[in-house]
């Protein structure tokens, strides 16, 4: 049984469709990359899956023990004010907030898990540092550690490597890969086709033509695109 199935899903804003009828499914342990041009609607699709944006039509089904509020999320841009006083530790543990319902405080177990996630990201030396004083790459890892607290099953990452240098980008990809190997389903938006082809086992291309399938088939789809590229525009 699949963890996440989208059936003829039409995401959009204010009643206007951005994408028409997206179909795909994700099984436990999959690594799905979503690719497409700027403005094609990748982030919108992700927000719709997360329930941040109501779908115009279509269905999103969760299965295999996955609940909607148990999905970890790394936003494309976190609009955090420049002067927000918060330590790395405080931010990472806040990933548990949604699961706790009306329970006011985090449990000891949650605090320990948060600490473990910080270690997994290789940023334990920053635990007590203030978030706003970190570099972009370090901030990205903090947010990934937080996303990890929110889930045991599935991570949704919106351009996790945007703005990172090649070395840190490679590190980020290998961290994500190791999370995937430990059994967490990954859905990642990226503009880096070569990384998508390298790591993913499924690719969803968004644009005038939709594509969903294996990386191997995606290569053929791409060459088809460039052959009649003139027709697309």
């Amino acid at each position, binding site marked *: 049984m699949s963890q996440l199935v989208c059936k003829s899903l039409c995401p959009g804003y204010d009643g206007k469709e951005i994408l028409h009828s997206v179909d795909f499914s994700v099984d436990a342990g999959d690594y799905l990359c979503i690719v497409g041009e700027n403005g094609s609607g990748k982030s919108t699709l992700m*927000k719709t899956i*997360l*329930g*941040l944006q109501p779908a115009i039509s279509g269905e999103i089904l969760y299965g295999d023990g996955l609940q*909607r*509020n*148990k*999905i*970890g*999320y790394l*936003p494309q841009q*976190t*609009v*955090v*004010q420049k*002067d*927000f*006083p*918060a*330590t790395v*530790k*405080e*931010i990472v543990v*806040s*990933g548990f*907030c*949604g*699961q*706790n319902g009306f329970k*006011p*405080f*985090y449990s000891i177990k949650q605090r320990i898990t948060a600490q473990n996630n910080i270690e997994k990201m290789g940023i334990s030396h920053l635990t*007590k*540092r*203030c978030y706003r*004083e970190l570099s972009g790459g370090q901030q990205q890892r903090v947010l990934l550690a*937080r*996303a990890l607290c*929110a889930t045991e099953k599935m991570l949704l990452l919106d351009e996790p490597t945007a703005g990172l240098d090649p070395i840190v980008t490679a590190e980020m990809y290998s961290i994500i890969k190791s999370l995937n190997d430990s059994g967490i389903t990954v859905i990642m938006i990226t503009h880096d086709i070569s990384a998508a082809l390298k790591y993913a086992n499924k690719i969803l291309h968004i644009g005038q033509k939709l594509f969903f399938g294996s990386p191997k088939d995606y290569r053929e789809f791409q060459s088809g695109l460039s052959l009649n590229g003139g027709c697309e525009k």
Partner: protein
Amino acid sequence: MSIFSTIAQYFSYPYVVNAMVVGVLISLCSSLLGVTLVLKRFSFIGDGLSHVAFGAMAVAAVTGLTDNMYIVLPVTVICAVLLLSGGQDSVIKGDAAVAMISVGALAIGYLIMNVFSRNLRSSNLSADVCSTLFGSTSILTLSNTEVWLCVILSVVVVAAFIFFYNKIFSVTFDESFAKATGTKTGLYNLLIAIIIAVIIVLAMNLVGSLLISALVIFPALSSMRVFKSFKSVTICSAALSVGCSALGLLISILLGTPVGSTIVAVDIVVFALFSLLGLILRGVKK
């Protein structure tokens, strides 16, 4: 020695003790949410809401309601909810919305007062207006019911803040992540809005509507100069706020200066000190 005996003498009057209790409680409450408000770019909400409360007071005065708390509190709460509960995706954003409501309420309130006061026993309406704007000595003439109301509301506010501390943090830091992972952001925005409205109505007695923002933001800004974690900033601003208000009240009683402005003046001095301290600490680290 003489100054202490003067203070001791003042504290033998119950109205001074009442003023002290109310002042400390109000400043504690208002500082708790100060951090959240500053970060949500709602520094001026205090002003905005207090002008709303002023408008509501005008209506209450004109309709001849003796205890205007019954009009002022609900109206202010409704406006706070309208302003804040929209959260990230409200149509008119933060500062613009606050400015709109604030100026609007001020104008309408003054208009109503002016038009209707001619038919009324136009006694000392302008004195009333002045004391609503700048706070009055009314903190020294609090009735026992008012003191109890203030104590109860403060306890509720502090309890709610502690209970929802972690949620407030998540919602302030990253609303869309909180929502995506199942936090009821709408509910907490509403809660924050209600708490703020209650605090502002309470605080109007202390410093008046023009100076409320100072009570809300100065302690938060001061502690943000020095501390780095949300927890320490919150605790420090609560402590600062209580200390400054107590000191300000004391000074104003001793020297006979206006209560509100004295408290704010103390807050400003502390802000300057903390800015300096922040600079020194940062310099030491380098």
